[in-house]
């Protein structure tokens, strides 16, 4: 086993060697511009791009022509929200989203609010789930778009997308899904789920950084978008710019591997997560799993360890790459807004760790991480005044703390 161990697969993933292999020729000998229609270099590039569209289309059950390539999911989210807001301005100005969405959605929504849009931010329950009836209740005659993520990047909770999609169809409202953390990990079918626009990214699924896509429905209904990037009219005029052919080739291959291996990989990673979870729960008291226990990604475990602070935990586990909801890991000094939205107190939000298990983790690594987490939490609890007070039977909620 090699150190350091990477267990932060929600942040990014290494490129799968099989993906890298198919990409390499497109940097050098097959370097053509996919938009060059009059020579073999261009045709070769276009052919590769077409294959990638087909590989993606198979994974999400759409027509290959419905894929718009972008630089990644942040751009896709921006294009979906801003593009719809501008194109459908005559129809209305109301957008529905949720408080636990990624910042690429929330910050884009805030920008649109400044420009006159009305945005409803739906709450989530204590498990992090959105209730479809609340989506329905929020729809007005001005609503032009619902944007709900498939799987949450912090707590891995999977939203009831098909039910929300059905409501959107009934009400004639467009439905965008930020599926960045879900595509390739759970089955996605844009037809069955009633999705009209969907963002995804290669680097979350063992493809390269800097490439992603937006699925844009072509019929029933035909979705139109105002372009954010003007230029040569690439990608059905929705996203100009020379195509990143090596990236696109990598994204396609990454999707193909996910499609073929999803079932066995999910099963394997789920067992690894449960093993880690069992070990931690057996060895430590007062640990809390954040997010719904079952409706979540197999790869995600988010746990709060009461009475110890997340950043100091990470410091004690510095040979393991993890992330924390602790404020101290951010510039804002605010703990995770996702955990706060679940009604989790700031104290427990500060005490959380996110484990993102992925393709290249091994059972041996899971055992090692479990052992090290338990030992570090115990060590820090031994020096935690809060743990000491709790053990003495003092109710921490009743203590007059000095705020600072």
């Amino acid at each position, binding site marked *: 086993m090699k150190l350091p161990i990477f267990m932060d697969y929600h942040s990014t993933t290494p490129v799968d060697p099989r993906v890298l292999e198919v990409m390499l020729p497109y940097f050098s000998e097959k370097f053509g511009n996919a938009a060059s229609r009059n020579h073999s270099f261009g045709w070769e590039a276009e052919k590769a791009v077409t294959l990638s569209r087909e590989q993606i289309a198979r994974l999400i059950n759409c027509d290959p022509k419905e894929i718009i390539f972008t630089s990644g999911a942040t751009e896709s989210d921006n294009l979906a929200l801003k593009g719809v807001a501008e194109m459908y301005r005559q129809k209305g100005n109301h957008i529905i989203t949720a408080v636990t969405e990624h910042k690429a959605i929330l910050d884009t929504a805030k920008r649109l609010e400044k420009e006159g849009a009305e945005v409803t931010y739906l709450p989530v329950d204590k498990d992090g789930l959105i209730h479809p009836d609340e989506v329905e209740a929020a729809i007005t005659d001005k609503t032009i778009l619902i944007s709900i993520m498939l799987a949450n990047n912090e707590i891995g909770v999977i939203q009831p997308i098909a039910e929300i999609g059905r409501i959107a169809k009934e009400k004639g409202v467009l439905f965008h899904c930020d599926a960045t953390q879900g595509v390739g990990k759970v089955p996605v079918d844009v037809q069955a789920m009633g999705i009209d626009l969907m963002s995804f990214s290669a680097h979350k699924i063992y493809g390269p950084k800097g490439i992603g896509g937006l699925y844009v429905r072509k019929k029933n209904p035909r979705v139109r978008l105002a372009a954010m990037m003007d230029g040569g009219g690439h990608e059905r005029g929705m996203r100009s710019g020379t195509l990143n052919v090596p990236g696109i080739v990598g994204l396609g291959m990454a999707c193909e591997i996910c499609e073929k291996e999803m079932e066995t990989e999910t099963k394997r990673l789920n067992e690894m997560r449960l093993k880690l979870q069992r070990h931690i729960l057996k060895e430590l008291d007062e640990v809390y799993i954040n997010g719904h226990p079952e409706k979540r990604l197999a790869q995600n475990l988010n746990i709060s360890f009461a*009475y*110890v*602070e997340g*950043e*100091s935990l990470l*410091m*004690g586990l510095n040979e393991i790459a993890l992330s924390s909801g*602790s*404020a*101290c*890991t951010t*510039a804002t*000094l605010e*703990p995770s807004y996702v955990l706060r939205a679940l009604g989790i*107190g*700031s*104290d427990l939000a*500060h005490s959380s760790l996110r484990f993102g298990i992925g393709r290249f983790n091994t059972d041996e690594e899971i055992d090692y991480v479990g052992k090290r987490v338990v030992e570090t939490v115990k060590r820090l609890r*031994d*020096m*935690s*005044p*809060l*743990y*000491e007070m709790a053990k003495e039977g003092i109710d*921490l909620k009743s203590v007059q*703390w*000095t*705020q*600072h």
Partner: protein
Amino acid sequence: MSYSNKVIDHYNNPRNVGSLDKNDKEVGTGVVGAPECGDVMKLQLKISGGVIEDARFKTFGCGSAIASSSLATEWVKGKTLDEAFQIKNTEIVNELNLPPVKIHCSVLAEDAIKAAIADYKKKNE
């Protein structure tokens, strides 16, 4: 967040972790911070004849908070109450090379020293 070697050393080998009997008349206890803010420090001083004989801490917080309180226990030992009262958070910042975002950790350590001294004085009025 990258830490200075001194912060890492205090985190890995914290000095004077533990508790003293808070009911002892010679022990002053200071608890500062709040769990919601992500850091709570408990600092205890054992004082005899106006001199700090011993010090213990327990801290809930990031590595810089642990290091600041660990350093504070080292610095106060052997000092008179007046000398300990003069310790400034900026001295802790300099010693540990704390970045601006972690200055509040040093403030907390200074507050903890002052709170422990105040507790001792109140007990022995």
